[in-house]
């Protein structure tokens, strides 16, 4: 498999992803489009319902009826959710949409993350990640990847994105300035990443696309990088 990555920077080290736990599939959710973590719960976008579950027990605890077609993010108090060509800012308590901004990819958007006062939006087949102003949707800068982007997350100053191209799916750490691939976690064959969020500690939560599952993947120790 490593031969196929000749396009990558040679420094990128590849490991097999270590899947710690699987959640779901959840009732009435055929696929997972995006995931986020609010400190206690994991939220998963399932098309028309945003569901929250307890990562300890795996039991669903909340559900908000709202269109949720792709990435999900949490800024400490609000949820952000990509729906069609816009990003909705949602009050997690009431489920009310407080504001909407246009999505930078005009509907080609996939992953969503919150970090350092900005939203980071993956643009799926265009293999890009945009940093945008969460108030206006204006693009601040753009990072080019060399794989489809299906999920984006920040943790400890590291930018990670999920990729799923054909049958190959990985979680990759990229240089936020150059887009260079620094580290790669290969998912097993047939296991795909459709959304990505770190819990701020040792785990990533990954949407499993049409499998309807959410998987917890161990984040490698920062040592050596």
């Amino acid at each position, binding site marked *: 498999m490593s031969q196929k990555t000749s396009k990558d920077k040679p420094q990128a080290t590849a490991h097999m992803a270590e899947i710690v736990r699987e959640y779901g599939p959840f009732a009435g959710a055929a696929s997972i489009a995006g995931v986020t973590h609010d400190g206690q719960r994991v939220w998963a976008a399932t098309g028309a319902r945003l569901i929250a579950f307890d990562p300890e027990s795996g039991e669903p605890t909340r559900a908000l009826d709202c269109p949720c077609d792709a990435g999900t993010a949490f800024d400490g108090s609000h949820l952000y959710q990509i*729906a069609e060509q816009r990003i909705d800012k949602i009050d997690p308590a009431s489920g009310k949409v407080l504001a909407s901004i246009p999505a930078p990819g005009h*509907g080609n958007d996939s992953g969503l993350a919150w970090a350092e006062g900005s939203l980071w939006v993956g643009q799926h087949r265009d293999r890009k990640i945009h940093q945008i102003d969460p108030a206006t949707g204006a693009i601040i800068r753009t990072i080019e990847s060399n794989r489809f982007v299906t999920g984006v997350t920040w943790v400890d100053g590291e930018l990670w994105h999920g990729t799923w191209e054909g049958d190959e799916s990985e979680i990759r750490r990229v240089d936020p300035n150059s887009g260079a691939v620094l580290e790669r976690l290969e998912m097993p064959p*047939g296991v795909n990443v459709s959304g990505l969020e770190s819990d701020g500690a040792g785990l990533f939560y990954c949407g499993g696309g049409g499998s309807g599952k959410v998987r917890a993947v161990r984040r490698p120790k920062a040592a050596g990088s």
Partner: protein
Amino acid sequence: MDSLIAASARALAAGDILGALKRVALRDDPPALALRGIAMAQLGEHPRARELLRLAARGFGANEELARARCVVAEAEVALAARDLGGSPRTLTAALATLEAHGDHANALQARLIAVRKLLLLGRLDEAEAALAPLDARGLPPSLAAVAELAAAELALRSLRIVPARVALARAHEAAGHAGVPALLAEVAEARATLDRPAARRLCADGEQMLRLDEVAALLASDALVIDACRRGLGTGAAWQSLARRPVLFALARALAEAWPGDVGRVALIARAFGTRHPNESHRARLRVEIGRLRALVTELAQIEATAQGFALKPLAERAVAVLAPPIDGDQAALAALLADGAAWSTSALALALGDSQRTVQRALAEMEAAGRVRSIGQTRMRRWLSPPLAGFTTILLLPTTLQME
């Protein structure tokens, strides 16, 4: 999958075709093309749908062969719905291999069912049966299970296996109910109705009696010697002698059977078999020859005894004789009865079976085709005639399972 693709797919799955189209109308990336193709197919725009699905298949990258295979399957299904049966099966076979290699069982079954339905429409029943036999419909989406059972029912009805046909139709009904697709339910109901319609007449000395398909099957399975003017042959139980290519012998057998247990005079037999009312010595000689041939062919089933007037049919083991005829008289009914086996017939074979000229048969077929009671495939000498399928195979219904592009 990106957000508008997801939203469009969600709309399509909910039956909002125009909503799905609206979201991806201006996009030309492969997933959008595939969704547009499926939406167009559901709107009945078959040529445009095929074009879009073909573009989508071509647009997916080398490492997206699963998505490409799903597009190929969707396009094959639209081709089937448009009754374009000319395509090579190789593309579909290759797509099927890809789907199986990736463990996409639902769409692999879908591809197999498309192949089976195509064989059924082409009248290649043995191949269809062989392709259908290994399919396991359990645990699969109910809409696919319903189609598999409908195909099994069609095959069973064509070969007059009524009990398996009923069982398959009951399962199809149940699966279609689970799928909640009205068009599928209607198709099952239509196929079930054929079981209750008159399929043939039994001619007796004191008149005639309409028979349903199961009664026909019961009669054919009974101990009686049946002279079947629908399929052109005679038999008892499993013993069957086809006379489809021997119209003179069949005319003689039918005349003898209609008169049974009495005999038929030579003049009457000559009139029936040779179509002349003024027989001469050569007709008599020919009648002797043809009776000799018929006697040799049916020796396992019956004897033909000479009487003072002419000849009489004497079934072996004191069996009764029954004559089965198409539900109504006339060329068209006879043609429809012959085609009811579901196989593909050439015009010349039909003409030979009915003992009519090709011209007469062609005229009758043209009228029936205009009325939608027969279908033809191929052109000129390769043209073959088939009865319409018992199940209509409204195919578009199954397309949404190909939707899960990722």
